[in-house]
């Protein structure tokens, strides 16, 4: 559950994204980037109560990339295009860039409308973006019901990881048909309701943002960018 005390203001999100991303790209010292990740990004995930989502991303996103790098660079190319140091740097940078986007786009459900509207989206693009966020819960809900139906029909004789994984192809047919049917009917309903007009008139829910937290994030983001710019412009060689 999202903690309402730690909601990040839409403009703070954008500031953080611009400063943190630009700073991390400009910084040629991977240790500073890593320190930023550990001291700022990870605590932000904790504050947003999204640390498990982030760990899932590390496990399913970063670890496979890391293993692919090892396979390609160490085993196939025999370190000709870069050794372990090169791999660690690339993977670390990718992790930090992706984590910055993850923290910025991990928006609480009831703050989605406000955030995207404040980011300047309107009309069709606003509806599309918010729907893209909402659609996942609908798909998982539907997939869960389909698996339940297969279990209750006795199509899964023995329940184990392998047999449950084998259900995946069978869920696709009803899932896709259901999604297409819903999409067609919903498009019709949106058109009849003139949803774009409704969205334009909708004010949204008023959320309160923690002033201290948001100010701290802005100060840290700008400071980080300034420090990196200083290091780059003065060609300061930072070493442990």
């Amino acid at each position, binding site marked *: 559950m999202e903690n309402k005390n730690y909601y990040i203001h839409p403009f703070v999100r954008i500031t953080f994204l611009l400063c943190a991303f630009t700073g991390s790209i400009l910084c040629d010292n991977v240790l500073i980037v890593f320190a930023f990740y550990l001291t700022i990004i990870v605590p932000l995930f904790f504050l947003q109560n999204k640390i498990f989502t982030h760990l899932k991303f590390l496990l399913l996103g970063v670890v496979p990339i890391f293993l692919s790098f090892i396979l390609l660079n160490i085993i196939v190319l025999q370190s000709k295009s870069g050794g372990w140091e090169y791999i660690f740097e690339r993977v670390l940078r990718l992790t930090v860039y992706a984590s910055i986007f993850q923290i910025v786009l991990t928006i609480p459900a009831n703050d*989605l409308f406000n955030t995207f509207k404040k980011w300047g989206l309107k009309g069709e693009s606003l509806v599309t973006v*918010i729907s893209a966020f909402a659609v996942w*819960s*609908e798909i998982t*809900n539907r997939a869960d019901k389909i698996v339940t139906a*297969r279990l*209750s*029909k*006795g199509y899964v004789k023995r329940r184990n990881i392998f047999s449950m994984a084998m259900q995946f192809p069978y869920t696709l047919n009803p899932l896709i048909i259901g999604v297409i049917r819903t999409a067609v009917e919903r498009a019709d309903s949106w058109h009849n309701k003139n949803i774009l007009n409704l969205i334009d008139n909708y004010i949204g829910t008023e959320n309160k943002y923690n002033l201290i937290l948001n100010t701290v994030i802005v100060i840290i983001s700008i400071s980080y960018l300034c420090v990196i710019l200083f290091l780059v412009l003065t060609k300061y060689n930072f070493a442990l």
Partner: protein
Amino acid sequence: MNLNDKLIFLKGNNFSGRTSYFLNNLKNSNENDQSETTLIIKELPVNNITGIFSSVIEELNLHGSSTDMVLKDNIFEFLYQIGFDEHFAKNPFSLSGGEQTILVLVCNLLLQPKVLFIDTTIEQLNETWYRPFFDFINNCNTVFSKIIVADNRYKEYGIVELNEFEATKEKIEYDNNFELPKLLNDLTKNDNRQTISVKNLSFGYSKNNSIFKNINFDFEIGNIYHLKGKNGAGKSTLAKILTGVLKVPEQALFVNGKIYNSFKKPGSLCGYSFQNPDEQIFSETIENEVLPLIKNEQSEYTKRRNLYLEMFGLQNIKKKHPAEMPFVIRKRIALASTLAMERQWYIIDEPTLGQDNNFVCFFADLLHLLCHNGKGIILITHCKFLIQKLNCIEFVLKHENHGYK
């Protein structure tokens, strides 16, 4: 109850042409600005939810963003009266069918359409909401435009003085005559009578959220149980436990006095027919859906498939894809496939959704015969007509106090 011409109920059985008659007339009379004046709520309420917001209150506020303030206040007052406000913070997709229906209905009313056409969706409303909804429309001071309802159940709720309109019959594409074949009696006979007993069952999805606490009951075979209870009372949870989808502690579920682990053999004791047929249709042809085609089929198996196809009026369309069929037929396919599985027990959720009285009578006879032949039925339904036709034992689920009525 006096209803004026703002509310019209369309008479007619399934495939009598009432919906197409209305839509064709609407198209002809209002061709130019149909989209701005008419709203149509189709059978499945979930498809009428915008899917943009993750809370009920936001969905309501979006639809009410340009609504007349008096009407908006009236509608919210109505929602508070029926106790719907407890769902405001929930995700619309997590609501039950009846709750989604009321949400979709009021959202459409908030848009103040000139014509609102409600196509059988309203059958999912329970008795505590159905009549109050129409009373609200009738008594609301703000003038609504025309509301046209195609519903098979309205007379069950005491709506008698009304403006009925009978559509002219068109060519009926699908078989809508039902009878119980004699062969059914032989094919469904069951001497292995399995009584389900639940002893001290406690269940919750998390430590802090207990749905059942030490409940005890027996379901005797040969009976039809009408499972009742508010949303969140645990109807679906109980159905999932009995079918083996959810795991419960050992020594909680017994069959004929012996411990039964349904979780290890999902779907072997009970067949479960869902409210939304689209969630349980997997095959590419109707015949394969009713009973999967297998190699070296025995004649009994083929006979059973043909019997259920014939009985549910699906024989002539058996080679077609279920997804191409209208909702009424998809619902019948789902029911036929559940019953054709030949289980000891059947849990059937809203079997009469979208079905006319012709089908309900047939279905009641079928359930009677199955029970007579040694099956057990657990029914979740709001269809009073079906309940009247069956000799049901009511089983009411409440959060803390469960028991027979």
